[in-house]
């Protein structure tokens, strides 16, 4: 969808190129995050895609068209653009701000009105915000309005330059989740710039790690970068918690699950003890057919059958599509040191800290 071929940008008076011979391919519908230290040319690279910065040499195509062959203002109306400070027009209402590009494109008024309403719902702003002015909104609301404005004419491509850099961490996390949620519905091709590696890992389908001078050190899905950093620069940039960061990228479903110390309700106390010995634990889970009904301590065993035991419900449960990070969190805070995994309502197995560790070490 977007292709950069040997793109170089030299600013007059700059020491060396800001971006040097950069090549990058962005597939349709994916989020590509450009991340790197300041001075790595990530913002310059982004701005070359909508010609806010003109490349010194090289070629950039969007949907197969050479961007230099399209008048800059027409190109920009086809490419959504969100920046950190948002840049909402203070003299226009939120609705008018959102309507900017549709108005430039000469849409009819009723079509614009409908679209504005739709976008306000899409980005989860209250309908009452329509006629407010930007200064009356909170930082998070302004950011949503900025995203709505960029989406207004339904551009296939979105460029986002540290859009969540100016809001506090809690709001940032929420806006990131919202962006991912939004992306599942709108399927844009997004190029996203950040200096925050965690944000890159969370949002990117692929992440390009840039070094000073616009050199791509590694361009791969975040799980791959975390598992196999291409070189010392990437390793250093990822920081010291690579393993922990990987946890949030791997779903529970990708790890082989264990049966766990589970016995059927019809089993005997001896079976239960044997099972606990096998796993080296002092508790056991109780199944009723395929249904997991709860668990009990070894000390709850009394007599030969399990019939009299009142199983305690599992408070710790993880779903198959949860991340290993959530699973680990559940495991280390639960008394059983094991998390039962459910696919919807169905019990499918258990996951342990050892299992997670084995997966990461692969």
């Amino acid at each position: 969808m977007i292709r950069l071929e040997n793109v170089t940008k030299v600013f007059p008076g700059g020491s060396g190129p800001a971006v040097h011979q950069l090549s990058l391919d962005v597939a349709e519908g994916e989020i590509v995050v450009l991340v790197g230290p300041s001075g790595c040319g990530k913002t310059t690279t982004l701005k070359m895609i909508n010609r806010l910065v003109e490349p010194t040499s090289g070629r950039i195509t969007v949907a197969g068209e050479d961007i230099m062959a399209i008048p800059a203002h027409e190109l920009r109306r086809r490419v959504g653009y969100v920046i950190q400070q948002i840049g909402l027009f203070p003299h226009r209402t939120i609705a008018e701000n959102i309507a900017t590009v549709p108005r430039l494109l000469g849409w009819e008024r009723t079509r614009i009105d409908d679209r504005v309403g739709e976008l306000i719902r899409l980005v989860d702003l209250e309908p009452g915000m329509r006629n407010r002015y930007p200064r009356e909104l909170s930082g998070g609301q302004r950011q949503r309005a900025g995203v709505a404005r960029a989406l207004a004419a339904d551009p296939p491509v979105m460029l986002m330059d540290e859009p969540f850099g100016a809001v506090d961490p809690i709001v940032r996390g929420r806006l990131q989740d919202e962006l991912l949620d939004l992306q599942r519905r709108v399927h844009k091709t997004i190029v996203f710039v950040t200096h925050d590696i965690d944000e890159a890992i969370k949002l990117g389908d692929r992440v390009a790690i840039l070094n000073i001078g616009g050199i791509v050190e590694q361009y791969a899905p975040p799980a791959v970068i975390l598992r196999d950093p291409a070189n010392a620069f990437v390793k250093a940039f990822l920081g010291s918690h690579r393993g922990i960061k990987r946890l949030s990228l791997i779903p529970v479903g990708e790890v082989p699950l264990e049966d766990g110390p589970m016995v059927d309700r019809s089993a005997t106390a001896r079976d239960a003890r044997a099972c606990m010995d096998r796993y080296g634990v002092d508790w056991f889970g109780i199944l009723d057919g395929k249904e997991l009904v709860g668990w009990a301590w070894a000390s709850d065993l009394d007599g030969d059958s399990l019939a009299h035991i009142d199983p305690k419900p599992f408070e710790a449960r993880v779903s198959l599509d949860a991340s290993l990070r959530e699973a680990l969190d559940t495991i280390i805070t639960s008394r059983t040191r094991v998390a039962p995994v459910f696919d919807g309502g169905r019990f499918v197995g258990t996951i342990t800290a050892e299992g997670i560790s084995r997966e990461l070490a692969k």
Partner: protein
Amino acid sequence: MDGQANRGLLMEFLGDLLQWFGENWSGETGWLARTGEHLRVSGAALIAAMAVALPLAGWLGHTGRGGLLAVSVINIGRALPSFGIIALALPFTIWLARSTPLIDSGLGFAPTFIALFLLALPPIFTNTYAGIRGVDADVVEAARGMGITERRLVLDVEMPIASPVILTGIRVTAVQVVATATLGALVGYGGYGRFIVDGLAIQDRLQLVAGAILVAVLSILTEIGFSALERFVVPAGISRRRRADVVPPVAV
């Protein structure tokens, strides 16, 4: 003289003034006609200055070029006394009237207009320039990034956002122009200056004071009128606190 007598004299003078306003309002030399003359030259100079300064400063402010020009213009503007400009303009307009068909007379309206135009130019220019330069760079970048053309960017984004500063410049300028138009009487123009200059010449204290009062009232009305206009023209959503960035009035 005791206070009582003083007060009596003052009341008598005020009575005479009222009588003067009552008797001298009509006709070609009445204060009504002089008001028209005063407003005509002031308005013409203000509109001409706006027509030159707004587009020029708007574009230079937008491109970021002409910063030095802006500073030079305001400094020259502050240094030049209007009285001097009128005196300098006079030989020029007399020559213009003699050797070209552009104007009928080198006296009166033409030199007054030139002096007021030159007086009005710097503050409108600098306030517009400063106002446009002061527009948030992020807003401009976002606008450009959405494909707004440069011309529309100036007209639809930068000008409205800068409007409080621009309008303040125009208001301050208008008041100065109205006050300074009085000097026109020195080169044969009408307006309120007529009363002051003639009053001085023939030692008619009443006429002199009446002229001064008229200038003061018209200046105040101008200030009020343009303040009301600002309230009306500045778009909602823009903080009117920006009026604080006013360039201070230029010395007359």
